[in-house]
């Protein structure tokens, strides 16, 4: 298990390096002079040269990458070319908001989606199963920015129950929670349907296995068979799905943060790309990739924890 964890972490680090190399390659290959785009056509050559130097773009690409990682190892992700603030500070300020948003959305989706999937299996073939099925497909089909805009209209503009923009007053828990409701719901809604479908599909398969018949032959109640004997196995594909889907949750956070003008990583990246603020783009991408890779590793380790057969494969 430990050897497996070390191997996965090593692979994760390699992925980080590859992603950053790809990012630098993208900057190198993008047509047009970044300084001209950022400063406008009437900027003086001195000013352009200054900006190019500040972003380190006058160096060979491989040297930029080496420098980036050497600095990153000491915790220095470079400086915002406009405000001159350290990128690490910017990311650390924006990160909690995005993580709270993403994790809340995920938790809501799991807490509602998994029981809905189980209920569907317990009531298979009935009206309840059909209703859950249709609703699931329906909410999967609706993009999160559509949910964001309509909920904004309904709950913020018409009903005035929830704030339309921002992340709430600092230090005021109630106001922060209120500001979280709509963005989190916008992201979670589709995932509820996704998870319910996934849990139902894999559980239907598990329910046909002989060990479920064994559990039935000992007269175990249906809810126990579903929630313990079947779910432990059926949840495994869902965990993989959620781990991979976290990437898409974070990218829907970019849209949702834009709609609700909510400070966060998504807003940070969008603004940085628009102003060709390369150090900020690079630093933020590095952190996001690191988070994504860690979550994937954590999910794999959790699966190994849940399924003793997988555990033994890694031990052997």
């Amino acid at each position, binding site marked *: 298990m430990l050897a497996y964890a070390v191997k996965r972490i090593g692979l994760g680090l390699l992925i980080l390096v590859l992603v950053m190399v790809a990012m630098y390659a993208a900057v190198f290959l993008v047509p047009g002079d970044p300084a001209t785009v950022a400063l406008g056509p009437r900027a003086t050559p001195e000013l352009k040269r200054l900006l190019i130097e500040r972003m380190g773009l006058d160096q060979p690409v491989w040297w930029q990458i080496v420098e980036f990682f050497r600095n990153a190892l000491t915790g220095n992700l470079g400086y915002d070319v406009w405000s001159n603030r350290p990128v690490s500070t910017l990311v650390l300020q924006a990160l909690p908001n995005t993580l709270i948003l993403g994790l809340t959305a995920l938790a809501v989706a799991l807490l509602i989606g998994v029981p809905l999937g189980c209920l569907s299996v317990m009531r298979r073939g009935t009206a309840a199963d059909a209703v859950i099925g249709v609703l699931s497909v329906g909410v999967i089909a609706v993009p999160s920015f559509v949910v964001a805009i309509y909920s904004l209209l309904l709950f913020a503009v018409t009903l005035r129950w929830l704030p339309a923009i921002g992340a709430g007053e600092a230090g005021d828990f109630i106001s922060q929670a209120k500001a979280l409701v709509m963005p989190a719901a916008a992201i979670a809604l589709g995932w509820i349907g996704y998870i319910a479908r996934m849990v139902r599909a894999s559980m239907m398969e598990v329910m046909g296995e002989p060990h479920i018949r064994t559990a039935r032959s000992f007269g175990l109640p249906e809810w*126990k068979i579903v929630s313990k004997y079947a779910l432990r196995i059926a949840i495994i594909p869902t965990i993989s799905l959620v781990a991979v889907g976290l990437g898409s949750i974070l990218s829907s956070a970019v849209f949702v943060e834009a709609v609700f003008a909510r400070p966060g990583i998504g807003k940070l990246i969008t603004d940085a790309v628009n102003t060709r603020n390369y150090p900020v783009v690079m630093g933020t991408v590095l952190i996001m990739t690191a988070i994504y890779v860690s979550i994937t590793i954590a999910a794999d380790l959790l699966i190994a924890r849940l399924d003793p057969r997988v555990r033994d494969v890694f031990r052997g």
Partner: protein
Amino acid sequence: MSGSLVASDLSVRYQTPHGSVYALRHVDIEAHPGEVIGIVGESGCGKSTLVTALANLLPANAHIDGSIRYDGVDLAKLDAHRQRLLRGDEIALVSQDPMTAFNPVLTIGDQLVDFQHHRNDLGRAQKRARIAAMLDRVGIADAERRMRSYPHELSGGMRQRVAIAAALLTDPGLLIADEPTTALDVTMEAQIIHLLRELRREYNGIIIVVSHHLGVIAELCDRVYVMYAGEVVEGGEVDAIFHDARHPYTQALLACDPARFHERLDRLPTIPGSLPSLTQPPPGCVYAPRCNRAFAPCSTIAPPLVTLSASHVARCHAVTR
């Protein structure tokens, strides 16, 4: 509680998109406490449907007619909840394939504790102590460690022992072993038969053993029912069936048993023909198309169950001729 089991005129049909499948027709069997009953027949003869019906585990598309009286109660008429309360308490099933019978992600101990859920009088520690004692009794060394094992860490033979231990833990009045040795190799099979023989000395409920293996039935059972195409075609004491079989199907089945040939044969004997369709069962005797003694009424009139001696019955026109 340990009462008698009497199935009378038991029929089961499955509703499928291609029409009804008459898996079991007019079956009469009985079993009394202390008896070991064998049910033998080739694949598709309805053995599994019969034990599934006895264990109240038929799928939702199955329709059941007739009665299964256990200790005076008709199991077929009980609602789903009452049926569930009997399963794992009065009725226990040792299922066919020990490799897949247990949940792969829960430990043996964890599952066996759950299987004793009807015993509200026992705490978790007491249940674990009972498991350890029972695993020891079915011949599993190092029971404490085995309880912490996952099913895939045990061999097939060991898993079948655990399955038998699980069934015995519930103190059932009716223990059904569905092909208990089919998935095992010959050495393991001998060991499991030995174990079952030992258990029957201390056990005073009913044991029903299903097998297509005549040797297993001969070694374990007091009485045996021979099934063919959803019907019981012959039933009686093991000695009577094996030495004085009267139904042509039983005779043919015995003639095909490889264990009876001491010399090497170029070709094993078989019964020519194949099973009749269970969607449209023939009007007469189900075995008539393959029977070498069939005569005029066999293909049109269903034969009655003929009593040959106190316990020996056969469903055949030819036995009375």
